[in-house]
């Protein structure tokens, strides 16, 4: 009996320590990023670094404003493309899909989530870029196809599985009575879904969108392959753009000294963006659960 109680206590301790791992990881990431990034920022000047419109490492000019704007634009584009399609597809999966084809379609969305971002990037490079190039020329905007629009479309595709999967499961978590009650009161199938079930699944859906935002803003390889990566202010949706993530990967390979630290500082800015997004979600969820 005694040894059993001891085992119980010991394993409880093991579980507790395991639970601490994620806290430790976040702490370490914060410490190491900030310790390496902040000094460079203060050397360059916080304002010059964040709002400077020139990125010329050769002349020791480090302004990442174009990249900040670039990241925000592509993410917004991805949301415009991906969120409506994603949520509607989730509704289809949960409420419209005929039983016989549900399984293959579910597998398909899981597959979509499993496709590596390099493969998406490659697909964008060989398929989307030529299409957008042609479209840009036909519409008289020019550009060589590697553009903000291409990156937005590709990212929109990439966040689909995240949004579909999470939205669908939160739709399914809503008690069936909600739907039945609405239909019993005379609502159509659609009205019951979009006015009763979807609002009830709000927090899950918002979480899905935010995860999508996170994936879009942090996506690196796919964006590098299709966005053109010019380190200048965006000049239209058919023109090239560079994101924060691309900035790091492209130049880290050969950067030294202040340049290298400026790239780490770019990572810090990205990290702060993510922290702000997470904080908003935490607030939203908290308010949601209190209601």
């Amino acid at each position, binding site marked *: 009996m005694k040894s059993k109680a001891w085992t119980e206590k010991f394993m409880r301790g093991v579980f507790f320590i395991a639970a601490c791992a*994620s806290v430790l990881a976040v702490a370490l990431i914060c410490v190491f990023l900030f310790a390496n990034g902040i000094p460079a920022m203060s050397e360059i000047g916080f304002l010059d670094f964040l709002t400077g419109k020139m990125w010329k490492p050769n002349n020791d000019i480090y302004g990442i404003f174009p990249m900040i704007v670039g990241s925000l634009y592509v993410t917004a584009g991805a949301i415009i493309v991906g969120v409506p399609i994603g949520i509607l597809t989730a509704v*289809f999966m949960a409420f419209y*899909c005929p039983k016989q084809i549900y399984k293959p379609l579910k597998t398909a969305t899981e597959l979509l989530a499993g496709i*590596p971002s390099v*493969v998406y990037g490659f697909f964008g490079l060989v398929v989307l870029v030529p299409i957008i190039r042609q479209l840009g020329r036909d519409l008289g905007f020019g550009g060589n196809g590697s553009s903000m629009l291409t990156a937005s479309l590709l990212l929109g595709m990439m966040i689909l599985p995240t949004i579909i999967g999470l939205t669908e499961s939160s739709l399914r978590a809503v008690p069936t009575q909600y739907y039945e009650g609405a239909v019993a009161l005379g609502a159509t199938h*659609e009205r019951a879904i979009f006015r009763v079930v979807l609002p009830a699944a709000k927090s899950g859906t918002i979480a899905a969108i935010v*995860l999508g935002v996170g994936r879009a803003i942090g996506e690196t390889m796919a964006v590098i392959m299709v966005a053109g990566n010019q380190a200048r202010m965006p000049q239209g949706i058919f023109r090239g753009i560079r994101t924060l993530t691309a900035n790091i*990967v492209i130049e*880290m390979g050969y950067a030294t000294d202040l340049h290298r630290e400026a790239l780490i500082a770019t990572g810090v800015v990205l*990290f702060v963006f993510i922290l702000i997004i997470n904080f908003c979600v935490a607030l939203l969820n908290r308010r949601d659960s209190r209601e």
Partner: protein
Amino acid sequence: MSSKSSSTQAKGVNEVTLGQKLKSYTRTPGSMVVMLLVMLAAVITFAVLIFLIAYILVNGVPYLQPSLFSLEYSSENASLMPALINTVIMTALSLLIAVPFGIFSAIFLVEYAKRGNKFVEVIRLTTETLQGIPSIVYGLFGMLFFVTTCGWGFSILAGAFTLSIMVLPLIMRSTEEALKAVPDSYREGSFGLGAGKLRTVFRIVLPSAVPGILAGVILAIGRIVGETAALIYTAGTVADIPSSVMSSGRTLAVHMYNLASEGLYMDQAYATAVILLVLVVGINTLSGVVAKRLTKA
């Protein structure tokens, strides 16, 4: 299964033919528009997926030549075999670290922690944070911590540790959800029969949560196999089979990125993309089968 589509339940109550359905839609045009939008969205999603896969298969399969699979990488054959082996090692190592931590911490959160515990809230916040962190930030951190501070250099080990932190929240989250989905009556039944907490967790709760946990692990494998940004500056881009976990090696995804961005080996890049896709499909199918078998047993 309470999660079965609610529409099927509703259908049982008032069976309608397609004609009646269409007729009722003409009376509510708003609903019809919404229905059509839903259908359109679903068609777009699945058309995109089918097109993507078909395009890569059609263009890549013809280039799957034996030279692609030779054990030595050279600038002539652009072999993907070393990268493939690296990917397997990397996946195994990362899971070895992340899966125990993920499952154990989820057990703590669901089974042990008291409701409203402040520490639980902290953990939840940090997992959410980890989940949102882009892979390139993990890459930067891995470079600063494992590569430089720990002094491991560009190595498989540094890459695996970086990836294991990256997939930890994924495994934690899915295990948590799976554990929560286990009805409390299971636990009560187990306690009622005299089982202790630990026995209840390992013999009753965990086995019924296996499919959910596996789903998380599958997602994790998918992320590891497809990861590039977190690996370029932690595991490096050497295109050979590593002699130990301390040597640098590129995984298949990194290999693929290098081929595509160099632009010299486009045919091989298509073929590599095929292998990556097949790998992902294979993993998903396999674990689907395993999950099903385990639930039956």
